C-alpha cells in the first residue's frame, strides 16, 4: 500500500519534471542532432533512461543538468548506433528549413542557418551557454573539457558566426 503511494508520488514528481524540462531538452537535442525527428527520439529515449534511474537523482534542483547529461549521452549513443553519416550541411538546412525559418525576423533565420553550419565542437558549448544559461565551469564539467578549452571554443564559435553572417569580401574583413 505504502509502496504504491511511493510509486505514485515518484511518478508524479517525474511527470512534473519532464513536463517542465521537455521543451529545453528537445531544443538542446535538436541543436546537437540538427534533425527534429532524431531530437525527439533522443529525448524520448533519454526520458525512459531517466525514469529507470530516477532514484539516483538525490537533488531535484540538479534535475536539469542531470537530464541534459542523459540527453547528451543518448545523442552520442544514437549517433554511434546508427552510424550516422556526416551529411551535407546544405541538405540539413534544407531538411529543417521549416523549423529554421522565422516568419517575422529574417535575422533570426540567418542566425539559425549559421548556427546549423557551425561545427559540433563549437555549437554545443554555445547552446549550453546561451540557451541553457550554463557558466563556462558548468560547460567544462558537462563536456569533460578544461575551462580554458571551453572559453576558446566559445570565442571561436562567435567569431565564426560573425564571419558567416557578415559575409562580404576579404577586403572587408576586420
Amino acid at each position, binding site marked *: 500500500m505504502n509502496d504504491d503511494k511511493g510509486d505514485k508520488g515518484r511518478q508524479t514528481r517525474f511527470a512534473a519534471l519532464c513536463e517542465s524540462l521537455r521543451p529545453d531538452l528537445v*531544443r538542446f537535442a535538436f541543436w546537437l542532432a540538427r534533425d527534429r525527428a532524431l531530437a525527439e527520439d533522443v529525448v524520448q529515449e533519454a526520458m525512459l533512461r531517466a525514469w529507470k534511474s530516477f532514484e539516483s537523482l538525490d537533488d531535484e534542483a540538479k534535475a536539469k543538468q542531470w537530464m541534459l547529461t542523459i540527453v547528451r549521452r543518448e545523442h552520442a549513443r544514437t549517433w554511434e548506433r546508427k552510424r550516422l553519416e556526416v551529411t551535407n550541411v546544405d541538405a540539413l538546412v534544407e531538411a529543417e528549413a521549416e523549423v529554421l525559418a522565422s516568419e517575422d525576423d529574417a535575422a533570426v533565420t540567418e542566425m539559425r542557418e549559421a548556427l546549423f553550419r557551425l561545427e559540433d565542437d563549437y555549437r554545443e558549448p554555445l547552446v549550453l551557454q*546561451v*540557451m541553457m544559461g550554463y557558466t563556462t565551469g558548468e560547460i567544462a564539467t558537462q563536456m569533460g573539457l578544461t575551462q580554458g578549452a571551453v572559453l576558446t571554443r566559445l570565442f571561436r564559435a562567435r567569431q565564426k558566426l560573425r564571419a558567416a553572417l557578415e559575409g562580404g569580401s576579404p577586403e572587408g574583413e576586420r
Partner: protein
Amino acid sequence: MNCLEFRRHVGAEPSSTEATVGAHRDECPACARYQAEMQAMDRLLGKAMLVDLRPPRVADEGPGPAALRAPSSSRRWLAMAASLVAGVLVAATLWVSYPAPTLADEVIGHAAHEPMSWTAAQPLTPEAVADVLDRSGARLRPGAVTVTFAKRCLFEGHWVPHLVVQTEAGPVTVFLLGHRSVEAATRIEEEGYAAMVLPAPRGSIAVVGHNVSGIDAIARQVLEEVEWEA
C-alpha cells in the same frame, strides 16, 4: 587587461561581470562598443535558439510514464508567453539603464569604430557587393558608384549591409537599415563626422562621412543609386 585580452574574454563571455572587464570597458570606447555588439549578437542567438519544435504526435508514443507525453499546447503557450514577458522585462531594464543614443549617433559610432574601412582603395567587384546586398533585398545600379568595402554588420540586432563608397568629397560609409524606418531626414554632426539618415523604400539609409562637405547631397545621390526589391 589590454584590448586583445578584453576581446578574447568578452568574445567568450559577452555578459561577463568581471571587474577587470568593467574597468577596461570604462576606459576604452572601442572595446565598450565591441562588447555591446557581442551582447546584441547573443540576444539574437538566444532568439534563434528558441526554435518552435512541435511535440510528437500522440499516435507515435509508446508505453511509459504519462510524463513522456508532450506538454499540452496551452501549457506550451503559457511557457512561451512567460519567456516572452521575462525577455521583455530584461530588455526594458537594460534599455532604461542606458541613455538612448539617436540613430544618427549610432551610425557615426559604428562608422568611427571601423576607420580601416575608409582606407580600402581597391574597388570591389559588382559580384562581391551584390553578395553583401542580396540578403537585404537591395542592389546598386550597375556602374553607379565605386564601392571599396562591403560587409554585413550587426547593427541594432540586425545584420545590415555596411559599404564604403568613394565620392568626389572622399569616402563615405553607407548603411542600409532595412529594419529601421524613419519619418524624416535627420542630419547630425559631431567631432568631424557628419551623418545623414534618410527614409528609404525599405527602412532607411544612413550615410556617414568624416571631414566631408555636402553630406546631404551625397546621401541623396547614394539613395538614388540603390534599387530595392518590391
